[in-house]
């Protein structure tokens, strides 16, 4: 019994220390929150007046509140563009450099926040630091920097972002494609070169093909046709979708062999593409997929046949049994809906 006493005391002391720690952390968090609210209450109306074009004789932002003011300004900057944004940026720009040390913080979250805020508030002054942040050890921070740089006003940073696209493999390819598409037409040359380069990572090329599809770049159709030689099915599918969006019958010759690809979703996509850019004599090859082993490829084939005007063939098929008949019925049903 006596032997247990020190253990009980130790547990009690540990719990008391833990409770004190929790209270201290809570107090610190409350103090920070209160401080932020005070800065927000003081600066929020003033920033709105600055955005509105008022000639504001603002008090100088104190160094200890600069970060909070930049956070408040960042919330507005994300919603703005044009001259309203220019006014806000001009107002807070002298203080943006106070965020630079945070780009070297030990906390990845702080580094990401700093990169994002610098991106929306002072990109033209701090782009060098944000480009450096692309090589941050954390892929998330790097992605935040890439997002900050992916702006139509700064297409010159596209190449730097593309060089790091392979780092963003944890994120959805469509997310990265959309991000790159934000740059717009200024990025076309870099994007085409990337897709055309077989030495680039296949995943990155698939992402770029998605971007070119979003940008509807007709000049990339032959590049996508060449990329169909890749061993990577994701790149092949992404290239097929690009051809489907911007291609023509000139790419049909490259697409046809994909109907016999080993991977079922490549075959399915190829059927779909040929229904748009193919010729009437592609019907037989597309119809062959109805009798394959993949229900998905069969369904896409049936829909492709419908698009090619083969309704009668599908109606005849739909009266039977098996995968081909089911796919035909499904395609006819979709058409009815």
């Amino acid at each position, binding site marked *: 019994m006596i032997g247990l006493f020190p253990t009980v005391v130790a547990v009690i002391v540990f719990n008391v220390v833990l409770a004190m720690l929790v209270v201290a952390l809570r107090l610190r968090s409350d103090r920070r929150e209160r401080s932020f609210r005070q800065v927000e209450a003081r600066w*929020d109306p003033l920033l709105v007046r600055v955005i509105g074009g008022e000639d504001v004789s603002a008090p100088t932002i104190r160094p200890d509140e600069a970060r909070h003011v930049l956070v408040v300004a960042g919330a*507005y900057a*994300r919603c703005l563009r044009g001259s309203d944004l220019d006014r806000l940026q001009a107002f807070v720009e002298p203080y943006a450099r106070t965020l630079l040390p945070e780009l070297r913080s030990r906390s990845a979250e702080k580094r990401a926040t700093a990169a994002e805020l610098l991106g929306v508030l002072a990109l033209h002054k701090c782009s060098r630091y944000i480009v450096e942040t692309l090589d941050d050890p954390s892929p998330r921070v790097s992605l935040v920097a890439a997002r900050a740089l992916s702006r139509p006003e700064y297409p010159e940073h596209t190449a730097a972002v593309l060089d790091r696209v392979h780092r963003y493999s944890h994120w959805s390819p469509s997310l990265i494609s959309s991000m790159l598409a934000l740059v717009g037409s200024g990025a076309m040359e870099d994007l085409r070169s990337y897709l055309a380069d077989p030495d680039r990572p296949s995943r990155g090329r698939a992402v770029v093909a998605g971007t070119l599809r979003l940008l509807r770049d007709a000049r990339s159709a032959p590049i996508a046709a060449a990329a169909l030689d890749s061993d990577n099915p994701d790149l092949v599918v992404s290239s097929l979708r690009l051809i489907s969006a911007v291609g023509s019958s000139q790419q049909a010759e490259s697409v046809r062999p994909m109907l016999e690809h080993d991977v079922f979703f490549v075959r399915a996509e190829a059927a779909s593409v040929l229904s748009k850019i193919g010729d009437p004599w592609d019907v037989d090859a597309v119809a062959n997929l109805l009798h394959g082993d993949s229900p998905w490829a069969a369904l896409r084939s049936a829909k492709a046949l419908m698009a090619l005007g083969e309704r009668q063939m599908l109606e005849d098929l739909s009266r039977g049994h098996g995968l081909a008949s089911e796919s035909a019925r499904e395609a006819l049903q979709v058409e009815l809906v």
Partner: protein
Amino acid sequence: MSDMRESFLSSLRFRTKALEMALATLDKGGEDALVSIARVVQQLDGSSVEYGFPGISTCARAVLDASDEDIPIATQELVDYLKSVSRAAAAVSEGGTGVEDVAIVESPDVPAEESRTVSVLHVDNDDVVATLVADRLSRDGFALSHFSDGESALAEALLNPPDLVILDVKIPKMDGFELLAHLRSSPKLAEVPVIVLSSMGSERDVVRGFDLGANDYVLKPFSPSELSARVQRLVPAS
């Protein structure tokens, strides 16, 4: 019709509650409450100007100015004024008393008979966007009312048809496209110009907006100055 009124009043009750909470903080010397009060009062001003609250924006501006000048607490006169606004809004939200009861809160500085300003109803659940739109349009002479969900905005529009509606697509309870369809199907509101202000910028979304009867489609991020110019084109401010 009574459902619409009830929906409007529920939003009014919510704002009244927010105002009372902010006032309670102010009584304790809470500096932060100034901005909260200004925001709530501005919202009240916008949404209930037809209910007899002229002059509230003057009060809101006074609160904002006090905040700018770093005055830790508003004058007693201002506090009394805000309390009477709160009481009057609560009286309206009870449903029984109506417009006459709130005449007491009219600011003596503001004439009861003003030249009619163009009313704009703005629907967006993003406070930052709401602030930017309210600031720009009020500077340009429009009377703005703000709602953060589609249902209460529709209720307000049916009760007090605005001269123009600005709406976001992703809003709670009833999305912007649905709200737009309701506006266009109402004989009272079918001709009211509508501007969609949304981050949904795909071709499909924009075409859908115009198909449903939008007069303009502005993408976020946006320029409040440009938005105001588009509003001016559709309904010139008086």
